[in-house]
């Protein structure tokens, strides 16, 4: 039996410090929660089934006989297990979540409600197309608005997240180059780029080289031009870039790249800063992914799912992946059967089993219709305004490496310059936790020392920002003063700093049922003590 029948087990030694004198380890509403496998059992279940009226016997003699080890809980226990776990999380619903590059904005519950309409949630991807015309309409409408908002020629809807969108974009580019018989090997990526950019380029078989940056945090156009050569397949630019700055020479970059026979990929993760204000299509880019889970507010869900449609230039459109939706005289049609379709013969192929993230499409469409033309423009403006407000309200206590070069876009970037006593970015971040905030993005982009990238988004109020600024100011002052106590932060969170080195050195990636009666078991790591 793999699940612990004896039930609850405190995960911390009782009474280990004056701060946790409770017997249970709980602290009023901050409740400890054991692992499922410690409280559940393979005999317990939280569902009822009717007994089968017959039994089948078509299992080819492969009946699973051994114990699987799947602990179950009754429904009430399940509710508590996950409710208690949830309460150990920070989230947008609780407060400011200024993770730079992540665009953690308000997630409207209208969108959750609409995505759950049975007409969207309870339809099968392989239903005959005449039975899913409304679903295809959602895809088609969203596609239309994404094309309109970006000023591009077409959009590939199936990529499942930003990185998958990058793949889609680079594969389109590669397909286009190969179609003209052009074998190029290098993709240029700025050092400040998100890790997915070089990873994607490498995945597509390209060699990655860095593009240098100027002192103002932008692509060094001259250096780029100097490097452009027939071996360069594409340049990946993030715009606004990961320093939170717009690339003012974007059009010139695109022109230079095109002149060299290469193509321009734009990482559109930061589209929130410019939606309704600037159309990437006007800047000469060839492909750009859009994170619906950022700009268009589909919830992050603790790590996913996302959705990463890729808008394409006319040059790339015919290489777009399958499936796609087209309008026909009889209604909308999902073009999926590769072999059968003449017109899609140049498509680089299929990226996912079905048609992409329908559940995110309905949410994003609802978001776009809700905001409308005026609202989307306001989104960008308020996002940029909020970021600049933070930048200017804190630059006297936090070093803003590009603060001199003018306004930022949707995120404010600071460095750890000026901190004393060995304190660094992580200490400021952990201090924010105690103050009731999720920290900013730390140590990214790599081009700035101890980077702190703060993206408030447009859904924060001024009063909320003011409180955040007050809190961060006070922590920054402590960091400049070398206040040792910051190293102990967080002290109020469900856990103090966690030992990541231990986790990586002795990976424990799944629960192992302890051997009975204190014999050596898989749980030994819990007995070790490490520093944060």
């Amino acid at each position, binding site marked *: 039996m793999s699940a612990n029948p004896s039930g609850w087990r405190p995960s911390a030694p009782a009474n280990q410090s004056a701060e946790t004198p409770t017997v249970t380890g709980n602290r009023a509403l901050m409740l400890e929660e054991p*692992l499922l496998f410690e409280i559940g059992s393979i*005999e317990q279940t939280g569902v009822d089934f009717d007994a089968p009226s017959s039994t089948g*016997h*078509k299992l*080819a003699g492969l009946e699973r006989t051994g114990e699987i080890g799947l602990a179950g809980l009754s429904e009430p226990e*399940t509710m508590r297990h*996950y409710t208690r776990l*949830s309460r*150990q*999380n*920070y989230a947008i619903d609780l407060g400011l*979540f200024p993770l730079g590059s992540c665009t*953690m904005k*308000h997630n409207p519950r209208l969108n959750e409600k609409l995505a*759950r309409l049975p007409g*969207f949630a*309870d*339809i*099968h*991807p392989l239903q005959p197309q005449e*039975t899913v015309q*409304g679903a295809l309409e959602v895809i088609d*409408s969203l596609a239309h608005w994404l094309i309109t908002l970006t000023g591009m020629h077409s959009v590939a809807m199936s990529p499942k*997240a930003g990185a998958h969108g990058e793949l889609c974009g680079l594969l389109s580019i590669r397909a286009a180059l190969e179609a003209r018989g052009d074998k190029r090997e290098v993709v240029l990526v700025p050092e400040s780029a*998100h890790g997915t950019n*070089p*990873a994607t380029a490498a995945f597509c*078989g390209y060699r*990655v080289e860095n593009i240098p940056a100027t002192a103002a945090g932008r692509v060094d156009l001259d250096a780029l031009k100097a490097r452009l050569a027939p071996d360069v397949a594409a340049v990946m630019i993030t715009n606004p870039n990961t320093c939170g700055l717009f*690339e*003012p020479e974007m059009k010139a970059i695109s022109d230079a790249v095109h002149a060299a026979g290469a193509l321009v990929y734009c990482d559109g993760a930061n589209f929130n800063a410019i939606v309704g*204000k600037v159309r990437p299509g006007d800047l000469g880019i060839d492909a750009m992914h859009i994170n619906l889970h950022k700009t268009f507010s589909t*919830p*992050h*869900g*603790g790590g*996913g*799912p996302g959705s990463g449609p890729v808008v394409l230039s006319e040059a790339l459109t015919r290489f777009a992946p399958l499936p796609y939706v087209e309008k026909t005289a009889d209604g909308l049609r999902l073009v999926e*059967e590769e*072999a059968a379709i003449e017109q899609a013969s140049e498509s680089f*192929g299929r990226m*996912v*089993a079905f048609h992409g993230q329908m559940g995110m499409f309905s949410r994003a469409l609802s978001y776009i219709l809700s905001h*409308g*033309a*005026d*609202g989307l423009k306001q989104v960008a403006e308020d996002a940029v*305004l909020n970021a600049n*407000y933070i930048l200017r*309200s804190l630059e006297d206590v936090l070093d803003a490496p590009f603060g001199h070069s003018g306004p930022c876009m949707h995120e404010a970037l600071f460095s750890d310059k000026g901190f004393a006593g060995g304190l660094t970015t992580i200490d400021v971040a952990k201090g924010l936790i105690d103050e009731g905030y999720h920290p900013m993005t730390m140590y990214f982009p790599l081009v700035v020392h101890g980077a702190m990238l703060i993206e408030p988004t447009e859904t924060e109020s001024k009063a909320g920002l003011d409180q955040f600024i007050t809190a961060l100011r006070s922590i920054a002052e402590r960091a400049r003063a070398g206040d040792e106590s910051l190293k102990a932060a967080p002290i109020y969170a469900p*856990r103090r700093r*966690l*030992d*990541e080195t231990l*986790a990586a050195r002795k*990976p*424990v*990636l*799944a629960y192992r049922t302890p051997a009975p009666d204190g014999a050596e078991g898989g749980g030994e790591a819990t007995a*070790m003590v490490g520093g944060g």
Partner: protein
Amino acid sequence: MRYLPLSDSDRSAMLKVIGAGSIDDLFQDVPEEARLTGAIRGLPDHATEMDVERQLKAMAGKNMVAGDVPFFLGCGAYRHHVPASVDHLIQRGEFLTAYTPYQPEIAQGTLQMLFEFQTQVARLLGCEVANASMYDGSTAMWEAIGMAHRITRRSRTIISAGVHPHYVSVARTMAKFTGDTLETSLPELSAATDAEALIASITDETSAVVVQYPDILGRIADLTPVAEAAHAKGALLIAVVTEPVALGLIKSPGEMGADIVVGEGQSIGVGLQFGGPYVGLFATREKFVRQMPGRLAGETVDAEGKRGFVLTLSTREQHIRREKATSNICTNSGLCALAFSVHMTLLGEKGLRQLASLNHARASEVAERLAAIPGVKLVNDSFFNEFTLRLPVEARPAVHRMVAAGVLGGVSLGRLYPDAKALENGLVVAVTETATDGDIDAFEAALKEAVQ
């Protein structure tokens, strides 16, 4: 606009602090000619919640809802009953609106859940370790092929004819660019799988053999011989599971020697959703963990010695390793993993076994009844909750005729393999616990009619 908290007076006060004269001053880096001046073409101004709801409801209303009709589709997406508490829990703001758990002190909820998910997936698939999810089954399969390539340093992969054609398609797409070679073939409408042919084609250059279990036609075959044959040549066995509920009743691929087991987790907790978001399952042997793609939650301790969880082994990942990462994946399918995990917790081993038995029993009944229709033949001699019929007529139009009768009666192989003449009479039928007696009666009647 209801989602935007700033008032005009806030905006002016803030501009003053910033020292800017207007919002447009903040966009000074955008060249004049690149600025959009008019409104967005064709898009009306912001709409009321009621209005947006009406528009989307109108679209939703044009679809035939699976739950409203007799419904028998599978082929990689299965309709199971998901308890109401699953949807309640995944909508808790603390799960729904959290980011990836980069700050573990205030993300223990997500991290512990992922650790539990990994454990559930590993145990279900019969492996030692599993990751924190992939996009879906098809991308998980592709990533497994890539991982096998890294482990074996070989680039030839044999894909069984029983693998979902869309999954094969995805692999084919990727292989075009990575230089991997894939050996693929079309399935045959027969009871036997291509296990023997696979075994015969393994060579010293084979990186991996990929099999689906149960396969696209619903057939089940012991993976042990293929595993042994692959291992004998230094190749890996990758198993793909698109219906994880089956593993409550039949042996796991891990038990039978698979080295990497990937799957589509949609069937547990997630729902149909027209194909996405789903959740890719990915499990393997402990010794391969550093070649694995995707996030991993691991156990550790905090500064006070309390057990806690963190994302770990990130030196495999793009944000640390960049172009040397094992995959470019970043955002994965966390919330669907939660749904899977909650549903699996509610089921527990006992419930999963009951559910699986019920599915198999029901499918067996239906198979028998449909095979009794004149001209209709059951292809399978083994299956879990999905089987293939050979109709006396082309299946694709038959499916459309059933739609006209208000029945969603399976997936035609013509839809999946549009060019394969030999398969065109094949109809793949999935039967789960959600099919009522009435549904089955209606399906039988509609199919009878449709094959006439």
